Structures are given as C-alpha cells and as structure tokens.
C-alpha cells in the first residue's frame, strides 16, 4: 500500500508504509495512539483525586438526558423509569479491552448494592448489535441490564467518542459527578455509588428532561 497521494508505483508487488501516527483518527492526544503499559498520558487521563470525586451540590446537578433503548429480549428500558435509584450508566463495547476490565466490578456492585437501590445499565455501542453482544455478556456472566445504544443516545450525552464512558446518576435523575471518560479505579466508582446511596431522597420537582443535549464533549459538560 503506497502512501496516500504518492507518485504512481510500478507493478512489481506493492510495498507501502503505513504511518499510524499520520492516520486521521479522532482529535485526541498523539500519545493515545500508542499502546503503553504506563505513560504520562495515562496517569493524567481521567485522573481524579478523592477530593475531586465529591458529588456536585444538588442545586448544580443537571438532569440526565432521558432515552429509551431495548435489551436483548426487546424489552424497553426508559431511563426516567429508574428514578428513585442510583444509576451507573456505562457506555461500552465488546471490542473495548478497558471496558472488559470494569465489567467484573459492575457485576459485584450489582450484587452488593441492588437491594439498596443501585441499578447498573450497560449501553453497548457495538455496531454489530446483539450478534456480538449476546455471546459476550453470556461469557462474562453479566448480571445487569444491557441495552443496545446508538449515536443519538451518545449525542445526548455529549458525544461518546471513546469507551468506556460512564455517568453516575442520583436518585432524582441528575448527573451527580463529572463523567468517567476511560477506565477509572474501582474505588472511584465505589465511593461515588456509596455517596449517592447514602443521600436522602429529596423531593424535587425537576424530572428527567427528555432528549436534552449536554453541551460540548461529555468530559467538558460538567466542568
């Protein structure tokens, strides 16, 4: 394969150099193109200290955009029907390695905290649909609701360009923390979940706002 736009090659078998660094991908830092075990980039991406993980004051929390998606059985899940529960809304895909690392955590959270009002919802962004998702969730023994997402729902949440991306929603249907773009630590999730489970349910006249777009990228929506 020749360089894009190069001079014509004679036919002898074509050898082309693919410079992965020059490929047009999404607009993200160059260092993210390289798979590294450790890097400065990884230390700063999605790095939040315990202090920063405090929930937003209730008056500053924006409503989570409402949507309806289907699970593997065709049953609809409407986000606003989960009001009264703490919801972990996780955008993921079967081809996402970091997503696979946090699935066992979600399984554990579902087991430990469902009775206290936690609901985990996995939104798969697999373009191959249930053909890819079903065997995967069966193999992983996923015990929480998984629905098939689409770009429209991704856009409601600021455009989900990378996976995993996770939102933590309080019992009143509001986004209580900045979103997790990438893989956080397990304790980061746990702290946020426990914080919201412990919050007293407050009467709130604000309901889920259907189809409300979060401005800008998901990571900037709550700065």
């Amino acid at each position, binding site marked *: *394969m*020749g360089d*894009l*736009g*190069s*001079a*014509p*090659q*004679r*036919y002898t*078998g*074509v*050898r*082309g*150099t*693919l*410079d*992965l*660094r020059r*490929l*047009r*991908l*999404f607009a*993200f830092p160059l260092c*993210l*193109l*390289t*798979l*590294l*075990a450790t*890097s400065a*980039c*990884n230390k700063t*991406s*999605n790095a939040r200290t315990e202090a920063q993980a405090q929930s937003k004051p209730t008056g500053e929390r924006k409503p989570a955009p409402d949507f309806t998606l289907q699970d593997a059985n065709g049953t609809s899940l409407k986000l606003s029907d989960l009001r009264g529960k703490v919801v972990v809304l996780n955008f993921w*895909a*079967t*081809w*996402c*390695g*970091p*997503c*696979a*690392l946090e699935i066992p955590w979600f399984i554990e959270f579902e087991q430990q905290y469902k009775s206290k009002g936690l609901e985990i919802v996995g939104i798969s*962004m697999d*373009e191959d649909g249930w053909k*890819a998702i079903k065997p*995967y969730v069966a193999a992983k023994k996923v015990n929480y609701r998984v629905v098939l997402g689409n770009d429209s729902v991704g856009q409601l949440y600021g455009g989900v*360009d*990378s*996976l*995993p991306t996770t939102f933590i929603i309080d019992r009143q249907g509001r986004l209580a923390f900045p979103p997790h*773009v*990438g*893989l956080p630590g397990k304790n980061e999730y746990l702290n946020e979940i426990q914080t919201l489970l412990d919050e007293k349910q407050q009467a709130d006249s604000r309901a889920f706002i259907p189809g409300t777009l979060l401005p800008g990228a998901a990571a900037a929506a709550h700065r």
Partner: protein
Amino acid sequence: MNSNKPRDEFLIPLQLTWSPGPLTAESVSYPQSEDIKVGPDTLSVFTGKIVLVTKFRAGSEASALPATVTGKLHYQACNNQMCFRPVTVDVRLPVVIQ
C-alpha cells in the same frame, strides 16, 4: 492498535482490503505484532510505523496505462485506559501497469 490477528475473538483486527479494479490483490502481508499486557490480558498490537505489503496481479486485459487501485483500511485503536471507535479509511494507490 489491534493487529490483524488479535488474541480475543471480540477484538477488531486491522484489515486492508482492495476493491476490484485494474489489478487483483492476491495477498496482503502484515508485519510481526507485539504482545502487551493490559490488566490480566495479553493483546496483539501494532504500534508506531508499520509496513503492509500487497501482492497484486494484472490480468491479461489490463492496459499499460496509469491506473488507480482503491481499497479500505479498517482499524480500531486503544490504550490501556480507553478505546476509540473502529475507523475505516479509503486508500487510493496510483499504479503504472507495464
């Protein structure tokens, strides 16, 4: 990004395909991949600059003129914190058939 032969069946491989045209692609050779550890898993990946070699064949009917071979490169990239959605880019290769 994932190599052309990722170790997990669910991962998306790097794949170069060519459209029918003045030349027929007989084979595509990929470079040696690297193994890296991400959590408990070992991934087969390509990093930095790599070279893909395609062996083409010109049919007897091919005319000795400049021509363009077109194809698609499909890939999906991650680091150990996040993944980016699969991408397909068009590839155009000007050739001279002699």
